[in-house]
């Protein structure tokens, strides 16, 4: 038991060290700053700039969270505070089914529905030329994917708040909305942050569905209608190919290292906020 515990506890570190050792070849020749901030990605001539992938990943993650966060929060509040109980009983299986669909199916759905929708309707309607494969398409697909997960956590969090706390606020003469805004939301804040952090980490690491609709074009996206490229897609698309190019596999390992580092960073920030707001 202790051995398995240690294994689980040290696995992230082992992964980290392993990836570092694999990418040390690249780090030996280039400075970290160059790798992260350089925009030029031309492995055949030895140019490894990760900025397009990092920026692409950030775009996709942030936009999908902007879609996900308000939808999930409002839905969770509505379902737990305003609807009758049977509504939740109907919704739960629907949410679980959404959560269980493989990501490649979501990707396919993105190609068949979201991409044409953006290129034919949304783009022209806004007067923007786009081929549909874009940051926005990836963010849409990602949102649909992570909404069930985040929503499920949020619903559980709101349901875990004791009714008596609600009654206490109402007995002071607060309206239902005041109770939600001033008491329930504050009580749920650590949980809400954790749920969003979880969604964020999933969005950042999601590979398949994003890769299928994001366009996979190496350049800095200027708007959400531009195509982009993400770190996980970079690894998935290229590992195992063109490994004859010097330092190429080392560069992909570095991409994985970046991914791991960013997830760790998310985790730490989340942890900080949860501890910070958990005192009430």
């Amino acid at each position, binding site marked *: 038991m202790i051995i398995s515990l240690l294994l689980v506890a040290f696995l992230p570190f082992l992964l980290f060290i392993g990836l570092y050792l694999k990418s040390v070849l690249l780090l030996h020749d280039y400075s970290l700053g160059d790798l992260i901030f350089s925009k030029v990605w031309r492995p055949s001539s030895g140019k490894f700039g990760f900025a397009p992938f990092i920026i692409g990943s950030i775009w996709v993650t942030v936009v999908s969270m902007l879609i996900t966060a308000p939808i999930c929060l409002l839905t969770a509040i509505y379902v737990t505070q305003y609807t009758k109980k049977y509504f939740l009983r109907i919704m739960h299986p629907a949410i679980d089914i959404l959560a269980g669909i493989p990501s490649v199916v979501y990707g396919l759905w993105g190609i068949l529905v979201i991409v044409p929708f953006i290129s034919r309707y949304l783009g022209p309607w806004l007067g923007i030329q786009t081929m549909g494969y874009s940051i926005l398409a990836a963010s849409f697909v990602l949102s649909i994917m992570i909404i069930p997960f985040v929503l499920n956590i949020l619903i559980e969090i709101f349901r875990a708040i*004791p009714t008596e706390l609600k009654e206490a606020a109402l007995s002071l003469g607060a309206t239902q909305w005041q109770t939600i805004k001033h008491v329930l939301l504050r009580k749920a804040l650590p949980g809400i942050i954790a749920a969003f952090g979880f969604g964020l980490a999933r969005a950042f690491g999601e590979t398949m569905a994003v890769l299928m609709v994001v366009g996979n074009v190496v350049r800095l996206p200027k708007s959400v209608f531009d195509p982009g490229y993400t770190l996980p897609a970079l690894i998935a698309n290229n590992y195992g190919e063109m490994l004859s190019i010097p330092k190429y596999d080392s560069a992909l390992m570095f991409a994985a290292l970046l991914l791991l580092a960013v997830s760790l960073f998310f985790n730490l920030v989340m942890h900080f906020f949860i501890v910070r707001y958990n005192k009430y």
Partner: protein
Amino acid sequence: MDQNTKIEIRDLNVFAGKTQILKNINIDIPKNKITVILGPSGCGKTTLLKCLNRLTDLYPELKVSGQILIDGNNILEAKEDIYKLRQQMGLLSQRPYPLPMTIYNNIAYALKLRGIKNRREIHKLVMHYLQQASLWEEIRTRLREPASRLSIGQQQRLCLARGLAVNPEIILADEPTSALDPISSQFIEETFGSLKNDYTIVLVTHVLRQAKRIADNVVFMYLGEVIEQGSVEEVFGNPKMEKTKLYLGGTFN
């Protein structure tokens, strides 16, 4: 209606689906007295209390019929301002549920809901109500701490202060000492004793000795029905009904 009656409950019935939780309740609750609703667990005491400040609205499965008259107004019909109505009553529940805020803001929030905005006045009143709940001396230096850091007895007194801060006429208490240690319980009971000059207090309990200690009036309930009601001397000294005698004798609970 009697001048001294604050709350009149007439033919109150509460159904949850097909089960009847309260059966034909008729109670008179006198002004500026402590009325204790006594009875074993699950006899509908808490539901009765929740009817009084319309917290039953939270449970759509409950069907409430009958009349509850407070100063002659039927609050079950009042559609307009439930929030004003709830502010006529301070609620103290079985376990303390401080709001997720600082100690100070727990009281200040109740004051703000009352419409008091002046910061100096809020400051003065927070102090006043904490004193009334005999909590001020213990926590005067800790006002900015989260309320959850207080001991459970202190939390319950904070909740009492918060309930008083809405400036109610009635205090509803649902087994307020059941989660507390004896000393904190005594604190609460003593506070109630001094509060009854200004408030009408309705206290729900299943503890006989507590009822004996602080009650002016006693309502004995069993399985959703009022078995017997009257002054504490009548009910405890000379119970008329068989069930009351048995309960007071401790033969069933």
